[in-house]
């Protein structure tokens, strides 16, 4: 199908245009339009997945048009096993977060407008194959996110929004310089990501190392890698629930996706050189995030820091530079999107009722809200990496990959595993267990909330039981990636 990827990317934007035409007072039709368009995107992505050739590591559905010939910039799109799962995740989380946006009552029209633009940026980032195009989409994500946090956020929203914006921008600027440097260091000069990956051996080792670091800096902020992570808790705490879900579920993956799409294939020598430091950073992320999360008193902040911890697994997997590690990293990216997205939804559910996120204010909710208790327990267990649920497979593969390359780091990371268990059990204990006090009147989760959770629960279970569901799409792409090293 020609222009199928273009259609996927710009469908949300079309939705935005349509929403712009609806009078602001018709909140209901605005919501419906947004949901409808996100459903359409999800359907299109499912069609894409069904037509996806699982037996090749090459790019599929390629689209290539000259865009700015004077600068050698093309409009290139394509999908492979590395991006497919993330595109699906984006579409799914996008739809669920749109469904969960019922709590947004302020300037609904603007909200969904910005939201749709965000979706276009996210999908574009994962599908772009031209560095300049990638950069444009990358930045296009930043601006709507800035507004979503800055306008619809909590009390310290402006601080959080600015912090997020400047932090990410600082990384992007370095990346822009890196993009230009890459363009000039390959012959023929090209922004095409496939060609650059193919001719990566042309770049001398030292240059590769420097460029690797430049790109890594940009991606590290997005992931976020310790010590560039402090924007994340602030942004999460201030962002409204659906935005948090997008932020944790999809946005963070842009960083790790960049690592796998750009850092490793473009600069294999740099990747090999920095694999060990990267693995150390992964272990630090894992342990540090878990510990930092443990001491928080704000529910959302705990989950935010646990995200930092989980992204440590992804880093470990990438640092392993082997098939197992890459598979684990990709799977963990997907799983983290599903699980942590669900966790933020659950935090939102309880925040809607209690209007606070202080852990000390909860307790005994298992008796008051049994369905909520089920979902929270389920997702916490998935988060802590309980075997049988999806989180475990990704973590295990990432850890196994690391173990094959750096056994000592994998062994140290085990501390993080224990800390994560402690963290999520304590969350369960503090929120659900104990005697209910003062909040006996909270209604249990309603149909909309449950219907948003159910697909995530189903995915968590299915991937946990049958990881090939996701892995089968990425096998060849990962093998191709390892082949570049």
């Amino acid at each position: 199908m020609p222009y199928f990827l273009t259609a996927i990317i710009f469908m949300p934007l079309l939705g935005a245009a349509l929403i712009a035409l609806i009078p602001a007072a018709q909140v209901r039709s605005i919501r419906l339009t947004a949901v409808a368009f996100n459903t359409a995107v999800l359907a299109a992505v499912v069609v894409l997945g069904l037509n996806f050739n699982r037996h090749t590591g090459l790019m599929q559905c390629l689209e290539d048009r000259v865009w700015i010939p004077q600068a050698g910039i093309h409009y290139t799109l394509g999908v492979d096993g590395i991006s497919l799962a993330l595109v699906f995740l984006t579409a799914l989380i996008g739809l669920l977060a749109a469904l969960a946006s019922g709590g947004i009552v302020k300037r609904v029209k603007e909200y969904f407008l910005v939201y749709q633009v965000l979706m276009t940026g996210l999908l574009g980032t994962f599908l772009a194959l031209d560095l300049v195009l990638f950069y444009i989409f990358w930045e296009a994500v930043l601006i709507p996110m800035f507004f979503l946090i800055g306008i619809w956020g909590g009390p310290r929203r402006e601080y959080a929004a600015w912090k997020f914006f400047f932090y990410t921008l600082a990384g992007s600027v370095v990346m822009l310089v890196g993009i230009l440097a890459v363009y000039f260091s390959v012959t023929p000069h090209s922004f095409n990501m496939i060609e650059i990956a193919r001719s990566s051996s042309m770049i001398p080792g030292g240059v590769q190392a420097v460029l690797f670091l430049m790109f890594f800096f940009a991606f590290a902020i997005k992931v976020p890698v310790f010590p560039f992570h402090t924007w994340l808790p602030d942004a999460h705490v201030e962002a409204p629930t659906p935005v948090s879900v997008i932020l944790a579920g999809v946005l963070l993956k842009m960083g790790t996706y960049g690592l796998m799409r750009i850092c490793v294939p473009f600069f294999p020598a740099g990747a090999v050189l920095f694999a060990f430091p990267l693995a150390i950073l992964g272990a630090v992320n894992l342990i540090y995030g878990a510990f930092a999360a443990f001491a928080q008193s704000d529910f959302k902040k705990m989950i935010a820091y646990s995200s930092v911890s989980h992204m440590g697994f992804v880093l470990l997997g990438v640092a392993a530079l082997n098939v197992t590690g890459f598979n684990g990293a990709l799977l963990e990216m997907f799983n983290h999107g599903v699980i942590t997205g669900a966790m933020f939804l659950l935090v939102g559910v309880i925040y809607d009722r209690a209007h606070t996120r202080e852990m000390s204010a909860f307790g005994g909710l298992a008796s008051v809200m049994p369905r909520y208790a089920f979902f929270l327990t389920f997702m916490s267990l998935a988060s802590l990496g309980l075997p049988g649920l999806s989180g475990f497979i990704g973590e295990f593969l990432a850890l196994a990959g690391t173990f094959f390359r750096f056994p000592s780091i994998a062994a140290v990371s085990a501390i993080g595993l224990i800390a994560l268990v402690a963290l999520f059990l304590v969350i369960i204990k503090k929120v659900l267990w104990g005697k209910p006090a003062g909040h006996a009147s909270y209604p249990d989760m309603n149909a909309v909330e449950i219907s948003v959770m159910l697909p995530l629960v189903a995915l968590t279970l299915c991937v946990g039981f049958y990881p090939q569901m996701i892995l089968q799409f990425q096998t060849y792409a990962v093998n191709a990636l390892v082949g570049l090293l």
Partner: protein
Amino acid sequence: MVNIAHFIPVFPFVAFWLNIIFGCRLGVACAYVSVGASAISAVLAVLVFMGLQAGGGSYVLTPWLSVNGHPISLGIIVDSLTVMMLLVVTIVGTLIQIYSIGYMGGDPRFTRYFAYISLFMSSMLGLVLVDNLFLLYIFWEGVGLCSCLLVAFWYEKPAAAAAGIKAFITTRVGDTGLLLGILLLMSVGHSLRFADMSVISAPEPLMVLAALLIFMGAVGKSAQFPLHVWLPDAMEGPTAVSALIHAATMVAAGVYLVARCYPLFTAHPLALQTVAVIGAISAVMAASIACFANDIKKVLAYSTISQLGLMMLGLGAGGYTGGTFHLMTHAFFKALLFLGAGSVIHAVHTQDIRAMGGLFNKMKVTSVTFIIGALALAGVAPLSGFWSKDEILTAVWQHGNLGLFIAAVTTSFLTAFYMTRLILLAFFGESRGAHKAHESPAVMTMPLVILAFFALFLGFAGSPWAHHAFQRFIAPEEGEVALDLGMAVASTVIACAGILTAFLLRGKFLGYKEGTCALIENKYYFDEIYDALFVKPFHRLAAAVARFDQVRVDGVVNGVSRCVQELAQASRSLQTGLVENYLLAQAGGVFVLIVVVTLVGKLCHIF
């Protein structure tokens, strides 16, 4: 018949989802769903057992995952060890679930209880069926989760909630070792299948390390020293749970794991020796604590640790049959003891044995079955415990290490002692509580009777009269076995000595002043030490990390932004608005420019 084995865990799993989703509507009926499911599993297990006569084997259901090019398949292993575990788990599990109908009756979360139990059954059965370590790990964590959820079943009680978390985290420490062991085995041994355990060749130190890491998982799950601290606390859960999970099945999984990976251990004596030593330490330590415990369930919990230690000791000393045999007999009589204790607690609403007394006349069935269980545990011939314990003692004796043998003997003696003390205090003497005790309903006593039957006669499977059927079943390759008569006499004498000592000291039990043996009464201060060594530092470290994050890491970020602001602020004051200042700066700039241009010109001339 063997290849129906993989259906065994499916039924409880279905029962779990049925109870979770339709639990509210099913009400009390959900108990029948769970009991029915595990009864079907039991029937299947028996069928598999009978099919085993035609030869066991392992089969692969489906490839599942590929790690580093090594396929991990969903494979099932069916051999004597598996079948023994299947039988134990399904039979004991079914009986305990029946018992639970009475014991948990009226609980507001009745359905939830049975859902968890079914999930546990399913995980436990999966655990013993799978043919490789990786899948075992999955179910291993699954039973750990169920244990945690069931210990914290009455989560309104802070102690229960804390115990649940403690159970999960402590075992998770061991499990992390197991996970690392799996990774190590995978990277050096290239196979996780139990069938390949004996043929894996890799550098000796790495294999020892792998074996020890795997053993670490067993230590956590079987509550062995030094990870035993969670099991006594886990007694906060419903007593039926204690019986099923924390006595009969789950805690025995550690022993099962060692038995399953036995070739790995026997190939490396250091690993095997470690197993024996850890088992010996656990056995003696826990037995000594049990002598001073006053909570009926705590006595039994420590007894469980001690007996599991004894099994480990047996395995470590090379007594494969002894260890596994004791695992089986112990499952039955310890389940019986716990259920009996539950029955008592149900009747008197206290767990303190000093507040019981004189129950024998009020609760005939419970008392008799409990005493049968206690005697079996104490190892009095010819009850089941005698036979299995005798095997272990023989094995340890033949192993030749005197220290280990003394430990085993001491454990036997102490076991007989504390069980007699428990019975004397709880069932005989005067009634010390103002309670009207009564016998439990039939749904609870019936399983007691059945279990007592097993406790009485199961041991004969290992006796000469049955031609050592168990030994031939579990380890046919070990060849002809014979009863060491001397050892049998010795072990009976030891047990009797323990019982006798308890009788002699019976007057002193009640008047015993606390603090005389502070070290043992306080469980060797393990909780306190761990609290000071791990728990508190963990919290402190977490707080420190959070503070560090806020102050230092974020401080740097905010500091950078503040620097920019300050810089802007500072450069603001340069903008005086006075044209003369601007001009001065401009002229200065011109001056500098001229200097630079001339200098550069000069330099160009020079070079």
